[in-house]
């Protein structure tokens, strides 16, 4: 395992905003065909880490390596062009735009030439529906349909299908299951597995340990901007992970805190 070059690697990355240290000495690796689960409580620095990976923030110290080569993303578009795609909680979809238009925002297919290049609706619809169906969303077959009419899971799937179609090699999923019901979440997890099967490196951010355990190969727990634990599948139990996420405090301690508070 260790002799393979990871697609994306962070080495001792620090990020601070003025005097506030948000990320401290982060070292992470993700290989192709692997799901890295990033676990952490609210405020642990997860979103800052994602934004650093996606080129929104530039680290103050440390290195980002892609395929073993040190690189620096100039902006989100740069990171995107290098194959890093971020999918946010609501999937980066636009409810009042059609599926076809959503799919191709920023990279619209055109026909015609010069200043008369026109958006090619028919092609956009055809491709977006085909890609969606390949990800198992067979219910949807009309590219003119507004995305607002899709379910949360379907919208996530649309974003993931979009990222994969546009040649993403690293898929960053920011809390994709947080707002979803059990069935919808299962759907998204299936799609994560499908992306992994296609050889993508997936960075899956969540605070739901169950969802992480269902798809993860490799886990990192983030506490107050530092990596508190880094382990592979099967090395820790669910209880241990939950305890880690709570900041080292065990769930049992938490429970006793709560009950004693009530007693007062």
């Amino acid at each position, binding site marked *: 395992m260790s002799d393979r070059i990871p697609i994306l690697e962070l080495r001792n990355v620090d990020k601070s905003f003025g005097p506030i240290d948000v990320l401290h000495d982060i070292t992470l690796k993700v290989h192709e065909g692997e799901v890295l689960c990033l676990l952490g409580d609210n405020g642990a620095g997860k979103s800052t880490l994602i934004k650093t990976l996606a080129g929104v923030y530039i680290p103050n110290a440390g290195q980002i390596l892609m395929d073993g080569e040190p690189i620096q993303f100039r902006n989100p578009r740069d990171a995107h062009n290098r194959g890093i795609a971020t999918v946010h909680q609501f999937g980066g979809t*636009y409810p009042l735009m059609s599926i076809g238009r959503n799919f191709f925002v*920023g990279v619209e297919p055109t026909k015609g030439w010069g200043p008369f290049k026109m958006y090619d609706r028919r092609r956009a619809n055809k491709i977006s529906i085909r890609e969606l169906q390949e990800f198992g969303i067979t219910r949807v077959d*009309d590219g003119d349909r507004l995305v607002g009419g899709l379910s949360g899971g379907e919208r996530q799937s649309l974003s993931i299908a979009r990222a994969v179609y546009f040649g993403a090699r690293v898929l960053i999923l920011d809390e994709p299951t947080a707002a979803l019901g059990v069935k919808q979440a299962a759907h998204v997890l299936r799609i994560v597995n499908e992306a992994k099967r296609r050889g993508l490196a997936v960075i899956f951010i969540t605070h739901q340990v169950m969802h992480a355990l269902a798809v993860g190969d490799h886990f990192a727990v983030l506490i107050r901007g530092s990596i508190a634990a880094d382990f592979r599948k099967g090395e820790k139990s669910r209880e241990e992970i939950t305890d880690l996420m709570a900041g080292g405090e065990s769930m049992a301690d938490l429970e006793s805190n709560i009950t004693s508070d009530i007693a007062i």
Partner: protein
Amino acid sequence: MSSDSTYSTNDSTDNVTKGTMMSSIIAILRRPEVGAFVGMLLVFSFFGYFGFDRNFLSPFGTSSWVNAASTVGIIAIPVGFLMIAGELDISIGAVVPAAKMSIAIACGHYGLPILMGLLITFAIAAFIGWVNGTIVTRTNVPSLIVTLATLFAVSGLTLFLSLLLTDRTTQALYSPDWAKELFGAYHFWGFQSSVFWWVGLAIVFFLVLHHSPWGNWIFALGGDKESARNAGVPINRLKIALFMLASMAAALSGVSETILSNSATTTTNFALIFNTIIAVVVGGVLLTGGFGTVPGIFFGTATLGIVQQGIGYTPFDRNLSSLIIGVMLLIAVLMNNTFRRMATTMSTTKR
């Protein structure tokens, strides 16, 4: 405008009859310009009926409302773009007199050639738009407040500079024939030049919004700014460009009026601000951004023109036109909201 096949019904209506009917109804509901068009027809029939005796339907009656609509319409479409993108521009109320005075002072007072005056005027308008856009993108202050500030700043500056340079608040301008023809002459049926600008620009803007990649960016920007940024849409540059477009459209409207009437005044046009917003909303653009169409805005502007001018051709009191517009606006907003709810909860292919 038969080319609006963007919204043509889906190809998957091959299931049950009920589904086919539902889907065609929903396909129509997806098109807010249909509502705006029906509204325009209703208003037109109303005034056509009550104004028939006073020649509302004559060429002269027609050009009177089309002319009025055109001066608003040229500005309404770019303002609609901004609203779709989630922003608002009310500084146009001051850009119009600023543009009028610029060209009138440059050419009428200093005697510069009209082409030079146009260049100066559009440069000033573009600069105001750039300032609006830059402040909005840099500070994240709501554009309503930013453009309210520039509305007053620009109108104050227009008055101050006019008095400083010419010692007057009105300025005469006599333009050469070609400029008259192009910007401010009456053509057949009494249509003024701005009507042709309005129709021409509407077609261009239609292609831009509904058939070009830029249009998709505008919708994306209004739908979800962050996602649009992540998708690689240059959101700040796009926003600044849209503010510049709105300002320059306001300048075009002002220049046309000045060349037509041979004079300019510094009076800030507050009514115009409301008129453009009404035209855009009646045209089916969502106040919250992310949705709207150029044909819708076009019909909305026409409706406004019919009501405001048409009332004079009827036996009704002139003041009632504002009542009609108020009611219309309310109905339009309610319809837009219903539309949004239906568009996001219903699907064309229920299984």
